[in-house]
């Protein structure tokens, strides 16, 4: 059963008084409100003031005829449908066509038939209500869309806070990224370690929009948090993989390339999981070494099966690492041809000014595709002199009132631990509880890292640092390191930390002892300081950054001191 027709307000425009009277009665009897007009002008005015829902319009009227009045009323109605039924004894199709052109929706012939009129009113009303529903839904959709856009804006603002706590503005980084990169799943992060090394991550989440952006937040938190604490790439990778594996659905993952550039050690450490090849460009030889993906993306493997092994390559001052997202290779032209790796390498080969490389690649993409792409991410990181980069000061969250002033602690890390554990972040965190040491955290970490690495690599593992004098030796060195560490059965490193007050300030004494063969301390001390050499026990560095550095027990034991004055 159809619901009863609701009462409408109907305008009747008819110049014949008798006809007007008759029609009004008929319409009122059918349950509607009636407005009347005797000519077109009156009809338009009545419509303007009272906004009836339906109009019965005589075609021939004085002052203004029905056609003109109909056009004006339709214009006034705008988006809303106000059905107009022409009252006419016009029979010729030409005249009827004129009615339709003027905006008429139907006709009623004279003499008036009540049954037909009722049916037409009902049908027109259905149409009217249908139109109203369509407009309402359209407005609802527009509102909803607006709301979604706003949500995305908010999400982006929150994410920007997290993403940009890094050092992408450092002088040795150049990058290109769309402002909406996040919503394409692209992520670019960079941060300094306490020792002054730089970690860089270029990532690409599967999917688009908010789902991709949501995965990026926890990843960024891990990256920044652990980098600031002094963790190495492998540990950070393990944590990022575990986190993504845990929180993301099975079919979501993050391709990523991670770099650690060490200005002190003149090396770059690389891990690439599922990203296109990166390139290490050596200024001296002009060679470009591809950094291929050798791992699965993050978030795919369980923690037990995850492979955190990195590659280490030598990097001289001025060398650059270049990373790009797959948006570059995947750029298509009108024939669905891919830009591809070959074209990219041609741009590399043709490049004369390293600083112009980005612009040249963008231009090549534009030329190829016919227009610019806005979802490509590229980053270029170069190795500068250690003095040219200045890591920002660490921010501490405690109030600075209480700290331990007189204590000591000893650790002994044995073979099984040395294989799988890096104690440096913990040691550093411990030492940073001493407020007086905070201003020297960079030097502290660097010295500790150097002492520990010497003790492990040269002491316990017995590696010969002179291997690192060239690129192939470099690779062999790190391979040996990896192998010997895997096979390690015995050995230890002992670390002793002692903090004592001294006047208004204090003193930290660090002792590191290893179970290795030791070295000829005298000979190493006598070698001239050589900043360019990649090898050596970093003895010079240790002496430069700490006080009263000394070696004993045939080089198996090292001792350094740090001092601080009273805090202001």
């Amino acid at each position, binding site marked *: 059963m159809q619901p009863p027709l609701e009462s409408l307000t109907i305008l009747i425009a008819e*110049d*014949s*008084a*008798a*006809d007007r*009277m*008759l029609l009004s*009665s*008929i319409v009122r*009897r059918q349950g509607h409100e009636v407005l009347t007009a005797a000519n077109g002008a009156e009809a338009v005015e009545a419509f303007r003031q009272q906004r009836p829902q339906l109009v019965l319009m005589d075609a*021939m009227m004085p002052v203004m005829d029905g056609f003109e009045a109909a056009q004006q009323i339709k214009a006034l109605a705008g988006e809303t449908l106000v059905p107009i039924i022409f009252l006419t*004894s016009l029979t010729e199709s030409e005249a009827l066509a004129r009615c339709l052109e003027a905006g008429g929706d139907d006709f009623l012939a*004279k*003499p*008036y038939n*009540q049954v037909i009129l009722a049916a037409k009113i009902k049908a027109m009303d259905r149409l009217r209500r249908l139109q109203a529903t369509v407009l309402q839904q359209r407005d609802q959709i527009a509102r909803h869309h607006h709301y979604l856009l706003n949500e995305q804006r908010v999400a982006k603002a929150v994410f920007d806070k997290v993403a940009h706590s890094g050092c992408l503005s450092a002088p040795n980084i150049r990058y290109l990224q769309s402002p909406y990169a996040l919503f394409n799943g692209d992520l670019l992060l960079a941060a300094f370690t306490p020792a002054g090394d730089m970690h860089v991550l270029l990532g690409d989440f599967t999917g688009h929009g908010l789902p991709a952006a949501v995965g990026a937040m926890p990843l960024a938190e891990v990256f920044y948090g652990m980098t600031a604490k002094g963790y190495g790439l492998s540990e950070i990778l393990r944590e990022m993989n575990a986190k993504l594996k845990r929180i993301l659905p099975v079919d979501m993952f993050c391709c990523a390339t991670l770099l650690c550039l060490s200005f002190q050690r003149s090396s770059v450490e690389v891990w690439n999981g599922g990203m296109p090849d990166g390139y290490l460009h050596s200024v001296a030889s002009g060679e470009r070494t591809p950094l291929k993906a050798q791992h699965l993306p993050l978030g795919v493997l369980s923690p037990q099966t995850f492979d955190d092994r990195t590659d280490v390559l030598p990097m001289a001052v001025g060398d650059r690492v270049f990373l790009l997202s797959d948006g570059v290779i995947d750029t298509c032209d009108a024939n669905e041809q891919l830009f591809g790796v070959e074209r990219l390498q041609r741009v590399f080969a043709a490049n004369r000014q390293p600083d112009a490389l980005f612009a040249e690649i963008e231009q090549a993409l534009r030329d190829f595709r016919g227009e610019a792409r806005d979802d490509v991410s590229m980053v270029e990181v170069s190795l500068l002199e250690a003095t040219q980069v200045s890591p920002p000061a660490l921010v501490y969250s405690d109030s600075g009132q209480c700290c331990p002033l007189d204590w000591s602690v000893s650790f002994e890390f044995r073979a099984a631990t040395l294989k799988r554990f890096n104690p440096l972040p913990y040691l550093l965190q411990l030492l940073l509880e001493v407020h007086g040491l905070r201003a020297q955290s960079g030097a502290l970490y660097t010295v500790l890292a150097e002492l520990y690495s010497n003790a492990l690599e040269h002491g316990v593992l017995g590696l010969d640092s002179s291997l690192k004098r060239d690129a192939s030796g470099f690779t062999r060195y790190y391979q040996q390191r990896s192998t010997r560490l895997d096979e390690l059965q015995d050995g230890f490193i002992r670390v002793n930390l002692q903090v004592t007050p001294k006047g208004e300030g204090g003193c930290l004494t660090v002792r590191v002892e290893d179970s290795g063969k030791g070295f000829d301390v005298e000979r190493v001390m006598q070698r001239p300081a050589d900043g360019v050499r990649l090898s050596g026990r970093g003895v010079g560095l240790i002496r430069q950054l700490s006080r009263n550095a000394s070696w004993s027990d045939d080089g198996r034991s090292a001792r350094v001191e740090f001092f601080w004055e009273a805090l202001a």
Partner: protein
Amino acid sequence: MADTHLDRDVLSALQEVMGDEYSTLLDTFLDDAEERLRILRKAEDAAQLMNAAHSFKGSSSNMGAIRLAELCHELEQCAKNKNLSGVEKLVGEIDGEFALVRPLYEAECRRSSPTKAIVPRF
């Protein structure tokens, strides 16, 4: 063709619809009709003639004056085709037809007025 002068079925339907206003409607029609006849007699050009005839045709048919409506239709067609030769004759016939039906309408008025019973409103 013998058209009906006044269709009684139409009249009863009108009375049913108009209720109390029935006689008012008839009066209004008669006044209207006289005005239109005046225009028809004095029409100066074909367009005026055509529009007046068209209008008269409409209301006559609504009021059940079938023959009158038919005559108006003929006049309308003549005027449209700019065939002014038979116009005078047709106007005369219309005049005559109206003179015929007019007393019938007036009788209807008188017939329905005395019965001023209160018709229930809804």
